[in-house]
């Protein structure tokens, strides 16, 4: 009970903080403009002549690469730099409560931004009959992917007081995890690496798990994959905070 109360208090403050600064609005607008532009002009949504959202979801992993580390970088770095970490951690709460509260707030914010792309869904529904099951599972995959990126960003934010370093580290880690399972990369590995190694690398990557959602496949293993990435990264962030100097 105390755990939920404290987590909610932290999450509420974090959300208020997001919307009291102009950064959140700029972030939202940049994401929406970019996602619309790429869907309609780069992926040629209209010319493809198909009433599905594949050209829309295809780009999410790449856009998240820049945007999610940017949303995550200040979560702990800023607390460390400005000294508010000292106030926060001497309040009667625990590190896991603070960690989860911040994570949920940032994830909720990203979720709101992602769901604000709904006009694209409406456009598709107007033009044809998209498979709504696939659309819903696509959004679910997108949310989970954003959560995984966010957890990585929280970890890199917890280990440095410099937001720029946090951003770059998160970008590098996410890029690695993104490329690890991407077909062009695995195809390259197939030629010389043993089969088990290719599969191991691919299993670590975001892409195969994300693609399954885009095909409308809801597999518990994919859910478990994203959940385990988030739990692992948040625990690592918690350890980094507990053992800070």
């Amino acid at each position, binding site marked *: 009970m105390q755990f939920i109360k404290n987590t909610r208090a932290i999450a509420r403050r974090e959300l208020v903080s997001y919307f009291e600064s102009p950064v959140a609005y700029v972030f939202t607008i940049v994401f929406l403009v970019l996602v619309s532009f790429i869907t309609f002009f780069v992926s040629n949504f209209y010319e493809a002549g198909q009433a599905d959202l594949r050209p829309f979801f295809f780009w999410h992993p790449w856009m998240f690469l820049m945007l999610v580390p940017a949303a995550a970088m200040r979560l702990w770095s800023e607390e460390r730099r*400005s000294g508010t970490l000292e106030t926060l951690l001497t309040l009667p709460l625990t590190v896991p409560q603070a960690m989860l509260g911040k994570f949920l707030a940032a994830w909720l914010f990203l979720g709101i931004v992602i769901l604000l792309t709904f006009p694209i869904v409406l456009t598709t529904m107007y033009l044809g009959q998209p498979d709504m099951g696939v659309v819903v599972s696509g959004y679910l995959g997108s949310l989970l992917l954003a959560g995984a990126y966010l957890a990585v960003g929280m970890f890199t934010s917890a280990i440095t007081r410099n937001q720029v370093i946090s951003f770059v580290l998160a970008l590098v880690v996410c890029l690695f995890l993104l490329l690890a399972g991407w077909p062009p990369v695995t195809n390259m590995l197939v030629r010389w690496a043993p089969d088990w190694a290719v599969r191991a690398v691919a299993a670590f990557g975001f892409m195969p798990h994300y693609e399954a959602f885009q095909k409308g496949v809801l597999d518990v293993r994919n859910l478990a994959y994203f959940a385990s990435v988030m739990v692992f990264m948040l625990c690592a962030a918690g350890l980094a905070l507990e053992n800070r100097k």
Partner: protein
Amino acid sequence: MLEVSELHKRFGAIHAVRGVSFQAQQGVLGVLGPNGAGKTTTMRMITGFLPPTSGTAIIEGHDIVDQPVAAKRLIGYLPESAPAYMEMTVWNYLDFIADVRGFSGGERRRMVGETVERCYINPVRHQTIGTLSKGYRQRVGLAQAVLHNPPVLIMDEPTDGLDPNQKQVVRAMIRDMARDKVVVLSTHILEEVEAVCGRVLIICAGSVVFDGTPAELKARSPRHGAVELRVSAGAEQLRPALQALPAAERVEAEGDRLLVYPRASAQLMDEVVGLIRKQPDCRVVELKVLDGRLDEVFGALTAPARRAS
């Protein structure tokens, strides 16, 4: 009550705090020490921000190492330079603190409203903290620390960077709160110790080198109880006569002043006054007993550290 026992902190090869122990009751305990003496590290361990390498602090019976959440509930802490979320308004910030402190609904609103009044930040309650002056920001930090009316209040340099008027305001608030709380504050302003502290702890190179009242601290000054005379005529005859007084240890001249150091401070003034009466051709224009100077004692007590660094 606050009981600190054998706190140690090592940062790699640096042994920053070496066995600090003390007990604090209601009233203000001032922690003094040169920069880098371990004051802030000690406070961070007492408030549960840093885990001690060994030792612990017990806050009203709750151990900060074993029961951190229960102990933290009883502490109000103002960290050095009063950090706060710059993008939040004063009201939202205090509302958040009250939320984590476990207050809700009408009680929370009342609590925040009262604190805002008590800390004189009512006029700026809807302003963003980042736009406030240093004095207001410090008071917001103080408001955050006292919001839940904690029995133990710990403040790291609460008046640092404030102008003289603001210092007076903050000191008055501290004196006010010390009536029913254990207040521990660190400072490197010696006058502050005399102004607000009932007891002083001097920390030097991670160890406690003095624990007592400000009066006891002053009494350690070699000038404590010395008699100072300003003489406009006849200083030459007066000086050997003063030297010959049984209660005088030695006499030093400083410009037009004579400083008589005491052997036994009690009778010195009487003997000096008696002597002056018997010397009609001496004109003494000023006569006073010195109280001792804190900066001298502070310098003497922390000298080993200065030599080492």
